[in-house]
């Protein structure tokens, strides 16, 4: 190989390396943007699918207890009773009460759940275990800390306990996934006991309709 060829070869390689160094961050940004757009569209699709269950005015109006933060006692929950037309179907009823809970009280200071959190899905297994799937905002926007995370979960659990007797245990998912903690403290790997008496009773085999 002549010195001229060597010069052109090394020069070419240097140019290629420089071009790659310039292009790599641009490529990375594009990939990240594409991933973000895909995630947003997934979230959007789930939001559209998980539109709050419309309250049917034909349903009987029942006194509904919703648990929000107390304005007098620090870090405790208090029930607020409102009259809502609720379905007799436990899954629909659960969705209705949880969506009302997520909508929040009149005084925003008493919220227990972030305003941008959504209930994406809700299932009730035959053994009384409810699976509530929330959007990521529940984990990312809830204030980090044992007390605040516990208030958030307890407000969901106690609201279900007060209004949907079929729910005995509650499993919380975030964006369809099991997560280790809500925001770094509260353990979400297990199921929370919602109805203590019912949950301690032996599990009956699922009955067929």
């Amino acid at each position, binding site marked *: 190989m002549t010195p001229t060829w060597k010069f052109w070869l090394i020069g070419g390689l240097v140019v290629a390396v420089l071009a790659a160094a310039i292009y790599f961050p641009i490529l990375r940004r594009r990939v990240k943007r594409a991933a973000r757009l895909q995630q947003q569209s997934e979230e959007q699709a789930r939001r559209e699918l998980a539109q709050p269950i419309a309250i049917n005015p034909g349903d009987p109006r029942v006194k509904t207890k919703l648990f929000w933060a107390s304005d007098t006692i*620090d*870090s405790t929950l208090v029930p607020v009773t409102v009259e809502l037309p609720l379905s007799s179907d436990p899954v629909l009823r659960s969705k209705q009460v949880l969506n009302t809970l997520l909508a929040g009280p009149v005084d925003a200071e008493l919220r227990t759940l972030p305003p941008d959190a959504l209930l994406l899905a809700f299932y009730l297994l035959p053994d009384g275990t409810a699976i509530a799937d929330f959007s990521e905002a529940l984990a990312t926007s809830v204030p*980090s*800390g*044992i007390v605040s995370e516990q208030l958030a979960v307890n407000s969901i659990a106690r609201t279900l306990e007060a209004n949907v007797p079929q729910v005995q245990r509650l499993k919380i998912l975030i964006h369809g996934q099991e997560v*280790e903690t809500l925001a*770094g*403290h*509260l353990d979400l790997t297990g199921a929370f006991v919602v109805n203590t008496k019912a949950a301690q009773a032996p599990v009956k085999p699922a009955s067929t309709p």
Partner: protein
Amino acid sequence: MGNEFGMLLQVRNILRIKSLVLIGLLSVALLAAVLASPSVIPSQAQQPATGTPTTASPTAPSAQAGVASPFGAQTQQAGLSIVVLDPAHGGTDPGARGTGGIRESEIVLDFAIQVRRALELQGFQVVQTRQGNENPSFDDRSATANAQRGAVFVTLHISSTGLPGTARVYVNSDLPPVADSNGLIPWDRAQAPFLGLSKTFGDLVQGFLSQRFKGSPEAAQTASVRQLRTTAAPAIAVEISSVTVENRADLDRMAPGVADAIARGVAAFKPSYVVANTPGALR
């Protein structure tokens, strides 16, 4: 030929005798070394920060009523001597963040220094799960505690909410009972056999905290705290309110009181805790 063979046998015998003498001498030397060494070798590898081990006899009084052990009756009494301190979060996880730039991960590390000092003054050995701005996993932190004998575990937190200037102690919520007949404790429910002891320990610490910080609860509360679930020792979480204070100095002023309350709580708990001679293994 026969003579040469006999000589060879003799040489072999001499070599064997020499080997036996050498082995004997080595054995005696080894025995002497073992007898001369201290009877207990602390597992320093698991103890990045060690304080002064307690010199007081850790054995609980034999006539003491209500002494609890999670491992049943077949125990040789040994006492609480080690406190595992866990400054929560760290590394890429700052924990709770206040508007004034206060980061939970930094403050709990400062609190841990003061708590450690107060505990060492009481004669306890202290092991920290992190020394600097690292973020060990929940299991790594539990592993640090589970490697110790006769230890209690205290994880330190600062909350995002709650009445500023108060402190709360949490113990883990009820866990499904450990129903393993072979004596192994499942890792993911390692706290289950210790829940009663944790409650006693938590109530003691909370009692001292409520004397110091008005507005704090008088008894420990229960919560499903992830860090506590995999810890095979009496374990509590102490959460101080909160990162919302306008000035970090407000939190710093709480540190000596928190340290003193924890140290007093550990000392008060010590007589209630008997460590089994043969602890259940974790699986």
